């Protein structure tokens, strides 16, 4: 059933300061509303339980992509369209651009934001696996100040986040040391556009001669949160790629993920494709 519109509020604070005051004045009462690509779907389905929102879409303080020699910093309102068209991101963080281009289609990419994607906390989101591989950090802002936390570990369970009621995700900060890494990203969905992931796989490796010096592997849609597959990644350290390495890594990955049957796919399919993607990633390193 459709939502009863008079029950919902959507305020429009003029500044970030005003928005933060609203968050801290009645903790837990107010939630931010960015591009609306997730929240409006819930609203129309009559499943948007929270009632009091404030729009942040127009707040310039939360927009824009900035670069320093050490970091690329994305304003929380950076859209998927903006992510794809940024030259630095294309050069150094191609998995993020790829993820952005595979989320929804153009009309969604013009409204969906990186901060919204994180705050929506879906285990099937396409950008988070790439962000974790890149070692991204989140800047959380409140009237009390700003704190920076690693993105890894931010999602503690299905739709659960380590964030206080008065805090807002203001920026995503990505360290610029991915350039020398070989990167591999695959989203598996029912079709190329608009599909929600059955599996999302992001990985990167730093190579030393014929061997993997360090690897990172992160997956979406295979557990209640995005999974950083640290054990699988760590057994790859110091190894070349041969059948034994592939087998050892696949055996470890089986233990790290917990795919389920749901409306998009089955546990069996997800497990098999996950193992195949891991193998494909390792072969792509051409060692």
């Amino acid at each position, binding site marked *: 059933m459709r939502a009863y519109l*008079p029950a919902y509020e959507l305020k429009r604070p003029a500044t970030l300061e005003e928005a933060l005051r609203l968050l801290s004045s009645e903790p837990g009462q107010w939630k931010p509303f960015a591009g*609306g690509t997730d929240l409006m779907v819930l*609203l129309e389905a009559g499943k948007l339980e929270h009632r009091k929102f404030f729009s942040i879409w127009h707040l310039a303080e939360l927009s824009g992509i900035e670069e320093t020699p050490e970091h690329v910093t994305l304003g929380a309102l950076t859209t998927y369209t903006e992510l794809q068209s940024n030259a630095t991101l294309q050069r150094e963080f191609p998995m993020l651009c790829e993820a952005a281009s595979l989320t929804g289609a*153009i009309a969604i990419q013009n409204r969906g934001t990186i901060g919204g994607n994180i705050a929506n906390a879906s285990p099937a989101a396409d950008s988070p696996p790439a962000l974790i591989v890149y070692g991204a950090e989140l800047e959380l802002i409140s009237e009390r100040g700003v704190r920076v936390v690693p993105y890894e570990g931010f999602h503690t369970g299905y739709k659960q986040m380590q964030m206080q009621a008065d805090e807002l995700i203001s920026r995503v900060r990505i360290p610029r040391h991915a350039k020398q890494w070989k990167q591999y990203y695959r989203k598996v969905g029912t079709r190329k556009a608009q599909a929600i992931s059955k599996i999302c796989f992001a990985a990167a490796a730093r190579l030393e001669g014929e061997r993997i010096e360090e690897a990172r592997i992160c997956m979406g849609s295979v557990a209640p949160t995005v999974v950083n597959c640290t054990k699988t990644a760590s057994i790859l350290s110091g190894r070349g790629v041969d059948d034994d390495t592939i087998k050892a890594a696949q055996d470890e990955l089986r233990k790290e993920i917990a795919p389920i049957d749901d409306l998009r796919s089955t546990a069996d399919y997800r497990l098999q494709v996950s193992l195949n993607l891991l193998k494909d990633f390792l072969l792509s390193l051409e060692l």
Partner: protein
Amino acid sequence: MPEAFETDGKATVRCTVNGREAKLTGFPMARLLDVLREELRLTGTKEGCGEGECGACSVFINGKLVNSCLVPLAQVEDASVVTIEGVANGEQLSSIQEAFIETGGAQCGICTPGMVMAAVNLLERVSAPDENDIRKGLAGNLCRCTGYIKIFEAVVRACEATGVKR
């Protein structure tokens, strides 16, 4: 606390729609789609899925293609909205619309306004679209009648008609 809306919960939002000034009153979470159709009688914009999958409700906000079913009224404050009614010049159809007619790129017509908006958007963004650009440009729009080929051909023809190089 910011005083953005009237006490009865309704908001008054000022924006332009197809170049004309509009003062829209409604609940802040009202879908732009519904406001366009029901308050402004701009019924060219269609509702398909109501969840951002089908593109039938596509409009431009500040020049960007969006699904109007996913945009709450409160977020179009000060914005410029263009609907399918703003694509033609009065009775004079745009060359993109003509191309849809010439190739038979429409059957039941529900997806057509959104398809045209996506095509207009594509030709604005990409100076020389290749096949892949066209497929990507239309990927957010579903059609259950045509099988897409004739819609694809319409965009190819529109490129010729508008002088866009391919």
